[in-house]
């Protein structure tokens, strides 16, 4: 899309009126919003769970890197940035 990527010091948070939570019946994190719902895969869920308006994109990357083997560090950084940009573009997240 045409939205510029978020800088590493941006603090993404869930858009107003969106509900993000674990849903047992789907065994997944879900996003509920006016007129829709989305089932998130585990990585998307892990990223969104950290988009609290306090953590920066950089912190979220470091956080998730710490939980995974070092060999995946670059892949995680790239994955988080791509997802956060997509989520902003779709209106799920806003950069605070």
């Amino acid at each position, binding site marked *: 899309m045409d939205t510029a990527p978020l800088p590493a010091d941006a603090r993404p948070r869930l858009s*107003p*009126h969106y*509900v993000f*939570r674990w*849903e047992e*019946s*789907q065994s997944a994190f*879900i996003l*509920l*919003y*006016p*007129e*829709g*719902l*989305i*089932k998130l895969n585990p990585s998307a869920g892990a990223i969104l769970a950290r988009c609290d308006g306090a953590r920066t994109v950089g912190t979220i990357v470091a956080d998730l890197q710490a939980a995974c083997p070092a060999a995946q560090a670059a892949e995680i950084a790239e994955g988080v940035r791509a997802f956060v940009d997509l989520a902003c573009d779709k*209106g799920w997240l806003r950069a605070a």
Partner: protein
Amino acid sequence: MPTETHGISLDGQGKPLWLSLELTYRCPLKCTWCNNPLDFEDYAAKELSTDEWKQVLRAARELGALQLGFTGGEPMQRQDLEELVAYADGLGFYTNLITSGIGLSEERLLALKAAGLKQIQLSLQSTRADMTDALVGARAHALKLEAARLIKAHGFPMVLNMPVFRHNIALIGEMIEWAAGLGVEYIEFANIQYYNWALLNRDELMPTLEQVREAERVVNEWRAKLGKSMTIYFVIPDYYEGRPKACMNGWGAIHLTVAPDGVAMPCQEARVIPGLEFESVRERSLAWIWHESPLFRKYRGLDWLPEPCVSCAEKEKDFGGCRCQALLLTGNAANTDPACSRSPHHHVVQQAVAGVEAPLRFRKPLIKRAAGAVSTAFMEG
């Protein structure tokens, strides 16, 4: 329900993700395109109690329901609406209110907000007071504008829903402009669907193809102008396109509607189909009705499909279209939806569109939704 499936991105895996509760068919308005049953007044005495609705909510959550619409009739007519919203919110539903705005006072709006209501869909028929009031058969325009103002003032996301037909289709541009000024995020132009009251009045309500195309052009102009600040939902109605709609995303796939008397249905119109066995949550568990009842199994999946659907490449896209429309226009709910150009009954839909285009035709008065406006004696038994 006009807000069919946009935004859905998960397959229900057999779960009724989308729950609509028709709390009541009572309504102060007399809309000629209403999709409530013609004998709506017979339901008032049979409405589920607060506790019965709560039981429905619990059962639906156990089945995996997530999105919830409180609708009607006019759901504000139920004085226990706030209590039901709070209960549903506590169970984990995303709660939506679908209202005409009549009865939505500031006091009740605040109570609904405190109860956890997430979103409001407000209907507005035109940008002009005299036209709105004439269309809905009541002095409603000013009340609707006030409701819209309050909804925005209290920070609810609002879907503005404009039912579209011949009388107001030319006002789509004006409506978008008005909504943009108010800061509406989402506007839906619901080309009305022809069931019940709307079907009675179809010949008078249907816009011409030319009007529909012009409306589409106006919508696209505004989409380009407003960009992301407003989502505008508008689809060319199935009568004109030769393609059937993927009605309810398939029968018994993700949608579950419960009528005021507790009858659970795959869609709000299913009762127009004769010969189906309707079951109420008063007699049967919701789980049994959803999974096992002959009603929900009747047209679920693709196995029941007739020709030409069986050999059609698009069957997984539209599931044969709408069962109620097949019944109303071909006399058999198991036929291919006649909105499909491949249906052997497609001429019925083409004739309806052609009838609208005819330059010299006798205009009939619209039949307003009102008790006793039409005889429903034939529906007994």
